[in-house]
């Protein structure tokens, strides 16, 4: 149960708000920075607890509710008494059994769609994003213009970009006019997947480009000069210098993109439509069940999606070593931190 992984920590953190720091903690203090006094711990508790409280209410509580709800069936005719019951009957793991039994086709279809979209979009975004970053990094004139332009797809609401691409991919639209063919993009079929991927990559590749660009700007020029003196070509420089050095920033960006792709909803929903086999994702499946007042199955889908996302995130952090917090002094954030204070300071004093 991955669910239980989170609660104890949040509870432990909440529980710390009242009581004074434990003796064990005091013993550890001297090894830490001297600022860490009992007063600062109390203040930290005071400052952090409202956020934790709100997040417990809006995230933790609904998650537990979903877990609970997934064990209940729909209201309706009670088979034992023959009366219409107003409460939902407890059905145990039946909703899950149904997902892997009666509704297995729909579930696995949505599962593979979700996975396919995540792998393909994140892969394409990474390649296109890195290419964009390399171009922008070399260009000196008009960089502000490029940066503003690149932010436009990011700022367009996903729902609006869904409509926009629906218009582009219309049977009489510009996409068909450009390729000189008549493809019914928004009907069922593999082309619907292509349409979703094109739209998603358009919106998010520039964002990865932006993050990679920030990583590139931290690499000192001397490294490349040394490489050039040693006679390594552009490709080798990219493979052995650029890529390893932007890797931390790139990994975090990919992690976030991946999580975002796994919960994809707006784009296929608007671009192609609800209940379309070729593009139905797990989020769409769960939302569809919930909007049809089938809360039990919907919750079961939501729980499964949550578990899936959790496992992928865990794999990212464990296998690839994506460092989210970058507090301990390693990773991309840290190197950026060393660079940023100057820029920040000028802004602050200005």
């Amino acid at each position, binding site marked *: 149960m991955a669910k239980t992984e989170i609660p104890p920590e949040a509870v432990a953190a909440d529980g710390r708000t009242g009581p004074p720091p434990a003796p064990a903690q005091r013993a550890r203090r001297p090894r830490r920075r001297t600022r860490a006094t009992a007063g600062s711990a109390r203040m930290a508790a005071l400052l952090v607890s409202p956020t934790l409280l709100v997040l417990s209410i809006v995230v933790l509580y609904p998650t537990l509710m979903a877990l609970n709800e997934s064990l209940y069936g729909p209201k309706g005719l009670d088979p034992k008494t023959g009366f219409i019951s107003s409460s939902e009957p407890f059905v145990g793991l039946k909703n899950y059994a149904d997902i892997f039994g009666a509704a297995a086709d729909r579930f696995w279809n949505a599962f593979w769609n979700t996975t396919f979209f995540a792998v393909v979009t994140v892969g394409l975004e990474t390649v296109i994003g890195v290419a964009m970053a390399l171009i922008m990094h070399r260009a000196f004139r008009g960089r502000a213009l490029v940066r503003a332009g690149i932010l*436009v797809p990011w700022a367009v609401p996903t729902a*609006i970009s869904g409509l926009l691409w629906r*218009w582009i991919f219309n049977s009489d639209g510009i996409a068909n006019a450009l390729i000189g063919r008549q493809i019914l993009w928004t009907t069922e079929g593999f082309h619907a997947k292509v349409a979703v991927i094109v739209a998603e990559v*358009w919106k998010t590749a520039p964002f990865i480009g932006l993050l990679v660009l920030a990583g590139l700007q931290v690499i000192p020029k001397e490294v490349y000069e040394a490489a050039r003196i040693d006679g390594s070509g552009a490709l080798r420089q990219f493979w052995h210098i650029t890529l390893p050095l932007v890797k931390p920033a790139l990994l975090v960006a990919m992690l976030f993109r991946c999580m975002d792709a796994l919960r994809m909803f707006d784009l296929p929903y608007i671009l192609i439509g609800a209940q379309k086999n070729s593009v139905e994702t*797990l989020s769409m499946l769960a939302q569809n069940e919930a909007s049809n007042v089938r809360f039990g199955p919907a919750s079961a889908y939501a729980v499964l999606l949550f578990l899936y*996302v959790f496992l992928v995130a865990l794999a990212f952090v464990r296998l690839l070593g994506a460092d989210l917090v970058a507090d301990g002094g390693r990773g991309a954030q840290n190197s950026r931190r060393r660079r940023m204070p100057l820029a920040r300071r000028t802004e602050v004093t200005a």
Partner: protein
Amino acid sequence: MTTTITARWRTGLLYAGVVAVVAYCLAPFYWMLVSSLRRTSDIFDTSLLPAPVSFENYRAVFDPAQGFARALLNSLVVAGITTALALLLATFTAYAMARLEFRFKRLILTLIIATSMFPVVSIVVPLLKLFTDIGWINTYQSMIVPSMSFALPLAVWNLTTFFRQMPDELEHAAMVDGCTRGQAFRKVIIPLAAPGIFTTAIITFIAAWNEFLIALSMTNRPNMQTAPVAISKFTGATTYETPFGSQMAAGVLVTIPLVVMVLLFQRRIVAGLTAGAAK
């Protein structure tokens, strides 16, 4: 001689690349703008400029029957309140994360960030049931409360990075001069962090403004829908005709404020996004 020619070629190629990047990013948006300015009769035109520029679609958007003005207001209320609440809570938390030493700090920050990766649908499903039971469907709070699940972590993370970048000496000086930590926070840190708070506000606002799934699930009355939901449900004169023109016009109207913000504050937004490496 040959070197300058290859160098020139290389620069030429580079700027061709730059033009390609900008075209890639802006072309679809440009197409939305152009299509919104066409007349309904020549909406399927593929010329790069609208032949007679027409505001017909924009008039159609503000037809009272569409209720688009109300949808814009709803979006503004939901995104505005979400942003304000998230910033209020996040400022304190981020300050503690950046400046104070306490147990489980790394763990708590990781948990907060992890919630921002949470699939929204996992909380929408149970909350939809809860809100149906307590009669919150079609209310602002039913959209604001779930929105906090992504807005708050986003704000905490961005602000933590901003606070970390401010030199420690600032508060030390204030505290040497007799301020308590609370006073140092209020009188020194907050005013100096204003640019960071402002940037975080923009990023959070854009995220809340763009939200679709929550608004779609929590409303079923047209007058409570937010703008993205309302646009996706625009109907044309007949049921079989998708009103692409007015959809594009409404899309432009919803996007333009964000694009203007992005153009005005691009430097700050990029700093905020890359520092947080968040959405």
